[in-house]
Protein backbone atom coordinates (compact mmCIF):
# COMPACT_ATOMS: atom_id res chain seq x y z
CA UNK A 1 0.00 0.00 0.00
CA UNK A 2 1.42 3.33 -1.06
CA UNK A 3 2.11 5.73 1.77
CA UNK A 4 0.88 9.26 1.08
CA UNK A 5 1.36 12.26 3.34
CA UNK A 6 -2.00 11.69 5.05
CA UNK A 7 -0.90 8.20 6.14
CA UNK A 8 1.83 9.47 8.49
CA UNK A 9 1.00 10.35 12.10
CA UNK A 10 3.59 11.44 14.65
CA UNK A 11 4.40 8.67 17.11
CA UNK A 12 3.78 5.79 14.69
CA UNK A 13 6.50 3.13 14.87
CA UNK A 14 7.31 0.85 11.92
CA UNK A 15 9.53 -2.23 11.88
CA UNK A 16 10.40 -2.66 8.21
CA UNK A 17 9.89 -6.21 7.00
CA UNK A 18 13.08 -6.93 5.06
CA UNK A 19 16.71 -7.07 6.06
CA UNK A 20 19.81 -7.01 3.92
CA UNK A 21 23.04 -8.91 4.51
CA UNK A 22 25.74 -6.44 3.55
CA UNK A 23 27.92 -8.45 1.22
CA UNK A 24 31.46 -7.61 0.29
CA UNK A 25 30.08 -6.92 -3.18
CA UNK A 26 27.66 -4.27 -1.86
CA UNK A 27 30.26 -2.40 0.15
CA UNK A 28 33.23 -2.63 -2.20
CA UNK A 29 31.21 -1.97 -5.34
CA UNK A 30 29.45 1.07 -3.88
CA UNK A 31 32.64 2.43 -2.21
CA UNK A 32 34.62 2.12 -5.43
CA UNK A 33 31.74 3.45 -7.55
CA UNK A 34 31.58 6.59 -5.39
CA UNK A 35 35.41 6.94 -5.44
CA UNK A 36 35.87 6.46 -1.69
CA UNK A 37 39.67 6.16 -1.51
CA UNK A 38 39.91 4.81 2.09
CA UNK A 39 41.18 1.26 1.63
CA UNK A 40 40.01 0.31 5.13
CA UNK A 41 36.79 -0.43 3.24
CA UNK A 42 38.32 -2.65 0.55
CA UNK A 43 41.80 -3.88 1.55
CA UNK A 44 41.43 -7.01 3.70
CA UNK A 45 45.22 -7.30 4.09
CA UNK A 46 45.81 -3.85 5.65
CA UNK A 47 42.52 -4.09 7.57
CA UNK A 48 43.82 -7.33 9.16
CA UNK A 49 46.38 -5.16 11.01
CA UNK A 50 43.79 -2.73 12.49
CA UNK A 51 41.93 -3.14 15.79
CA UNK A 52 38.88 -4.52 13.98
CA UNK A 53 40.91 -6.93 11.87
CA UNK A 54 38.76 -6.69 8.75
CA UNK A 55 37.29 -4.13 6.34
CA UNK A 56 34.50 -1.94 7.66
CA UNK A 57 31.42 -1.00 5.67
CA UNK A 58 31.50 2.67 4.58
CA UNK A 59 29.07 4.92 6.49
CA UNK A 60 27.67 6.22 3.20
CA UNK A 61 26.68 2.64 2.37
CA UNK A 62 25.19 2.02 5.84
CA UNK A 63 23.14 5.23 5.57
CA UNK A 64 21.85 4.37 2.10
CA UNK A 65 20.98 0.80 3.12
CA UNK A 66 19.04 1.76 6.26
CA UNK A 67 17.16 4.47 4.34
CA UNK A 68 16.66 1.93 1.53
CA UNK A 69 15.24 -0.69 3.91
CA UNK A 70 12.81 1.96 5.18
CA UNK A 71 12.04 3.40 1.75
CA UNK A 72 8.97 1.43 0.68
CA UNK A 73 7.15 2.37 3.89
CA UNK A 74 8.38 5.97 4.02
CA UNK A 75 9.15 7.23 0.53
CA UNK A 76 7.29 5.24 -2.10
CA UNK A 77 5.28 8.40 -2.90
CA UNK A 78 8.04 10.87 -2.07
CA UNK A 79 8.73 13.82 -4.36
CA UNK A 80 12.11 14.64 -2.83
CA UNK A 81 14.55 13.80 -0.05
CA UNK A 82 15.07 17.07 1.82
CA UNK A 83 17.41 16.48 4.74
CA UNK A 84 19.24 14.13 7.08
CA UNK A 85 20.09 15.19 10.63
CA UNK A 86 21.98 13.70 13.55
CA UNK A 87 23.38 10.81 11.47
CA UNK A 88 25.37 8.61 13.89
CA UNK A 89 27.37 5.45 13.23
CA UNK A 90 27.02 3.72 16.61
CA UNK A 91 28.91 0.48 15.87
CA UNK A 92 30.99 -0.80 12.97
CA UNK A 93 29.32 -2.93 10.31
CA UNK A 94 31.29 -5.70 8.60
CA UNK A 95 30.83 -7.76 5.45
CA UNK A 96 28.30 -10.48 6.25
CA UNK A 97 26.40 -8.46 8.88
CA UNK A 98 22.67 -8.09 8.30
CA UNK A 99 20.94 -4.73 8.60
CA UNK A 100 17.33 -4.12 9.62
CA UNK A 101 15.51 -0.80 9.93
CA UNK A 102 12.98 0.58 12.42
CA UNK A 103 11.32 3.98 12.03
CA UNK A 104 9.33 6.41 14.13
CA UNK A 105 7.30 9.19 12.50
CA UNK A 106 8.31 12.39 14.29
CA UNK A 107 6.36 15.08 12.50
CA UNK A 108 4.10 15.63 9.48
CA UNK A 109 3.60 19.21 8.24
CA UNK A 110 1.57 20.19 5.16
CA UNK A 111 3.23 22.52 2.67
CA UNK A 112 1.03 24.89 0.75
CA UNK A 113 3.06 26.62 -1.91
CA UNK A 114 4.09 23.67 -4.11
CA UNK A 115 3.11 22.73 -7.68
CA UNK A 116 1.99 19.33 -6.38
CA UNK A 117 0.08 18.88 -3.12
CA UNK A 118 2.57 17.53 -0.61
CA UNK A 119 3.85 17.74 2.93
CA UNK A 120 7.06 17.26 4.84
CA UNK A 121 7.42 14.15 6.98
CA UNK A 122 10.25 13.81 9.48
CA UNK A 123 11.34 10.32 10.54
CA UNK A 124 13.74 8.85 13.06
CA UNK A 125 15.45 5.76 11.64
CA UNK A 126 17.38 3.11 13.53
CA UNK A 127 19.62 0.57 11.84
CA UNK A 128 20.01 -2.74 13.71
CA UNK A 129 22.35 -5.65 13.08
CA UNK A 130 21.60 -9.38 13.24
CA UNK A 131 22.05 -9.45 17.03
CA UNK A 132 19.70 -6.49 17.55
CA UNK A 133 22.39 -3.93 18.36
CA UNK A 134 21.80 -0.36 17.18
CA UNK A 135 24.50 0.36 14.60
CA UNK A 136 23.04 3.50 13.05
CA UNK A 137 20.59 6.34 13.74
CA UNK A 138 19.42 9.38 11.84
CA UNK A 139 16.56 11.79 11.36
CA UNK A 140 15.32 12.22 7.81
CA UNK A 141 12.94 14.72 6.22
CA UNK A 142 11.08 13.77 3.06
CA UNK A 143 8.61 15.64 0.85
CA UNK A 144 5.68 13.23 0.39
CA UNK A 145 2.80 13.65 -2.07
CA UNK A 146 -0.72 14.04 -0.70
CA UNK A 147 -3.23 11.36 -1.62
CA UNK A 148 -4.72 12.17 -5.05
CA UNK A 149 -8.34 13.29 -4.75
CA UNK A 150 -10.86 10.55 -5.46
CA UNK A 151 -8.59 7.69 -4.30
CA UNK A 152 -9.21 5.64 -1.19
CA UNK A 153 -6.69 5.00 1.55
Amino acid sequence: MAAYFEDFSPGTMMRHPRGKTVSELDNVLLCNLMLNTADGHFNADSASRTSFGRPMVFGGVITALVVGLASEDTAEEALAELALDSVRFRRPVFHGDTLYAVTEVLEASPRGELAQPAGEVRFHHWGLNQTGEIVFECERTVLVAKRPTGTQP
Partner: protein
Amino acid sequence: MREPPVDATPEKLRHAPLTRRGHSFSDFQVGQVYEHHWGRTLTETDNVLFTSLTLHFNPLYFNAETARRRGQDRCPLNPLLILGTAVSLSVEDLSEASEAFLGLDDVRFLKPLYGGDTLSARSTVLEARPSSSRPGQGVVSWLTEGFDQRGELVLSFRRANLFQLEP
Protein backbone atom coordinates in the same frame (compact mmCIF):
# COMPACT_ATOMS: atom_id res chain seq x y z
CA MET B 1 60.45 -4.59 -25.12
CA ARG B 2 62.69 -3.19 -22.42
CA GLU B 3 63.79 -5.71 -19.80
CA PRO B 4 63.01 -4.84 -16.16
CA PRO B 5 66.03 -4.01 -14.01
CA VAL B 6 67.61 -7.33 -12.99
CA ASP B 7 68.11 -6.17 -9.42
CA ALA B 8 64.35 -5.51 -8.75
CA THR B 9 64.06 -7.94 -5.83
CA PRO B 10 61.02 -8.00 -3.51
CA GLU B 11 63.35 -6.73 -0.77
CA LYS B 12 64.31 -3.71 -2.85
CA LEU B 13 60.68 -2.99 -3.80
CA ARG B 14 59.69 -3.00 -0.13
CA HIS B 15 62.11 -0.13 0.43
CA ALA B 16 60.78 2.12 -2.35
CA PRO B 17 59.44 5.32 -0.75
CA LEU B 18 55.77 5.04 0.17
CA THR B 19 53.41 7.65 -1.30
CA ARG B 20 51.49 9.08 1.66
CA ARG B 21 47.76 9.82 1.48
CA GLY B 22 45.45 11.54 3.92
CA HIS B 23 46.00 14.07 6.67
CA SER B 24 46.51 13.67 10.40
CA PHE B 25 44.81 15.46 13.29
CA SER B 26 47.49 18.16 13.64
CA ASP B 27 47.24 19.07 9.92
CA PHE B 28 43.76 20.55 10.32
CA GLN B 29 43.46 24.27 11.07
CA VAL B 30 40.04 25.80 11.69
CA GLY B 31 38.92 27.75 8.64
CA GLN B 32 41.21 25.90 6.23
CA VAL B 33 39.51 25.09 2.90
CA TYR B 34 40.08 21.99 0.78
CA GLU B 35 38.98 21.95 -2.86
CA HIS B 36 38.67 18.19 -3.38
CA HIS B 37 40.13 16.33 -6.31
CA TRP B 38 38.54 14.85 -9.40
CA GLY B 39 34.81 15.54 -9.35
CA ARG B 40 32.54 12.80 -10.64
CA THR B 41 30.11 12.79 -13.56
CA LEU B 42 27.24 10.70 -12.21
CA THR B 43 25.43 8.59 -14.80
CA GLU B 44 22.05 6.96 -15.02
CA THR B 45 23.86 3.65 -14.68
CA ASP B 46 25.37 4.76 -11.37
CA ASN B 47 21.93 5.82 -10.23
CA VAL B 48 20.09 2.60 -11.10
CA LEU B 49 22.89 0.42 -9.75
CA PHE B 50 23.07 2.37 -6.47
CA THR B 51 19.30 2.60 -6.04
CA SER B 52 18.79 -1.11 -6.75
CA LEU B 53 21.64 -2.33 -4.54
CA THR B 54 20.45 -0.22 -1.62
CA LEU B 55 16.81 -1.37 -2.06
CA HIS B 56 15.64 2.22 -2.39
CA PHE B 57 12.08 1.54 -3.48
CA ASN B 58 10.99 5.01 -4.51
CA PRO B 59 10.24 4.62 -8.26
CA LEU B 60 11.09 8.30 -8.75
CA TYR B 61 14.72 7.13 -9.14
CA PHE B 62 14.20 4.17 -11.50
CA ASN B 63 10.91 4.67 -13.39
CA ALA B 64 10.90 7.53 -15.90
CA GLU B 65 7.08 7.54 -16.14
CA THR B 66 6.73 7.92 -12.37
CA ALA B 67 9.28 10.74 -12.49
CA ARG B 68 7.22 12.50 -15.19
CA ARG B 69 4.00 12.09 -13.19
CA ARG B 70 5.79 13.65 -10.23
CA GLY B 71 6.77 16.71 -12.24
CA GLN B 72 10.31 15.81 -13.39
CA ASP B 73 11.50 15.48 -17.01
CA ARG B 74 13.40 12.31 -16.11
CA CYS B 75 14.60 10.35 -13.12
CA PRO B 76 16.65 12.46 -10.72
CA LEU B 77 19.74 10.93 -9.12
CA ASN B 78 19.19 9.28 -5.76
CA PRO B 79 20.24 11.88 -3.16
CA LEU B 80 21.95 9.15 -1.09
CA LEU B 81 24.23 8.54 -4.09
CA ILE B 82 25.03 12.25 -4.27
CA LEU B 83 25.74 12.31 -0.52
CA GLY B 84 27.96 9.20 -0.61
CA THR B 85 29.88 10.55 -3.59
CA ALA B 86 30.39 13.98 -2.00
CA VAL B 87 31.72 12.30 1.16
CA SER B 88 33.90 9.98 -0.94
CA LEU B 89 35.44 12.82 -2.96
CA SER B 90 36.48 14.43 0.34
CA VAL B 91 38.01 11.29 1.88
CA GLU B 92 41.58 11.64 0.65
CA ASP B 93 41.87 15.21 1.94
CA LEU B 94 39.91 14.77 5.15
CA SER B 95 39.51 11.33 6.60
CA GLU B 96 41.62 8.69 4.87
CA ALA B 97 43.97 8.59 7.88
CA SER B 98 41.18 8.72 10.49
CA GLU B 99 40.04 6.01 12.90
CA ALA B 100 36.30 6.25 12.42
CA PHE B 101 33.50 8.12 10.69
CA LEU B 102 31.37 9.37 13.60
CA GLY B 103 28.46 11.05 11.88
CA LEU B 104 26.84 13.73 9.77
CA ASP B 105 24.70 16.71 10.73
CA ASP B 106 22.57 19.19 8.81
CA VAL B 107 22.61 17.26 5.53
CA ARG B 108 20.56 19.39 3.12
CA PHE B 109 19.65 18.28 -0.39
CA LEU B 110 19.24 21.64 -2.11
CA LYS B 111 18.96 20.85 -5.80
CA PRO B 112 18.26 17.70 -7.83
CA LEU B 113 20.92 16.24 -10.16
CA TYR B 114 20.34 14.13 -13.27
CA GLY B 115 22.41 11.60 -15.18
CA GLY B 116 25.35 13.40 -16.85
CA ASP B 117 25.68 16.08 -14.17
CA THR B 118 29.08 16.48 -12.56
CA LEU B 119 29.49 16.73 -8.79
CA SER B 120 32.48 18.41 -7.17
CA ALA B 121 33.10 19.06 -3.48
CA ARG B 122 34.80 21.52 -1.17
CA SER B 123 35.27 21.38 2.61
CA THR B 124 36.09 23.82 5.36
CA VAL B 125 37.55 22.76 8.71
CA LEU B 126 35.07 23.69 11.47
CA GLU B 127 36.75 22.22 14.53
CA ALA B 128 39.70 20.06 15.63
CA ARG B 129 39.68 19.17 19.32
CA PRO B 130 40.92 16.41 21.61
CA SER B 131 38.17 13.92 22.50
CA SER B 132 36.75 14.37 26.01
CA SER B 133 35.88 10.68 26.34
CA ARG B 134 38.76 8.99 24.46
CA PRO B 135 42.29 9.79 25.68
CA GLY B 136 44.81 10.10 22.85
CA GLN B 137 42.14 10.70 20.26
CA GLY B 138 40.61 13.79 18.69
CA VAL B 139 37.55 14.80 16.72
CA VAL B 140 37.73 16.84 13.53
CA SER B 141 34.62 18.25 11.88
CA TRP B 142 34.18 19.87 8.50
CA LEU B 143 31.51 21.62 6.46
CA THR B 144 31.36 19.94 3.04
CA GLU B 145 29.56 21.51 0.09
CA GLY B 146 28.78 19.77 -3.20
CA PHE B 147 28.40 21.69 -6.46
CA ASP B 148 27.20 20.85 -9.96
CA GLN B 149 29.01 21.74 -13.21
CA ARG B 150 27.43 25.21 -13.15
CA GLY B 151 28.87 25.88 -9.71
CA GLU B 152 25.45 25.74 -8.06
CA LEU B 153 25.22 24.36 -4.54
CA VAL B 154 23.65 20.88 -4.63
CA LEU B 155 24.05 19.73 -1.04
CA SER B 156 25.83 20.63 2.17
CA PHE B 157 26.54 18.82 5.41
CA ARG B 158 28.76 18.74 8.47
CA ARG B 159 30.86 15.62 9.06
CA ALA B 160 32.90 14.45 12.06
CA ASN B 161 35.64 11.81 12.24
CA LEU B 162 37.76 10.41 15.07
CA PHE B 163 41.58 10.63 14.77
CA GLN B 164 44.59 9.51 16.75
CA LEU B 165 46.21 12.65 18.18
CA GLU B 166 49.68 11.24 17.40
CA PRO B 167 49.68 9.38 14.09
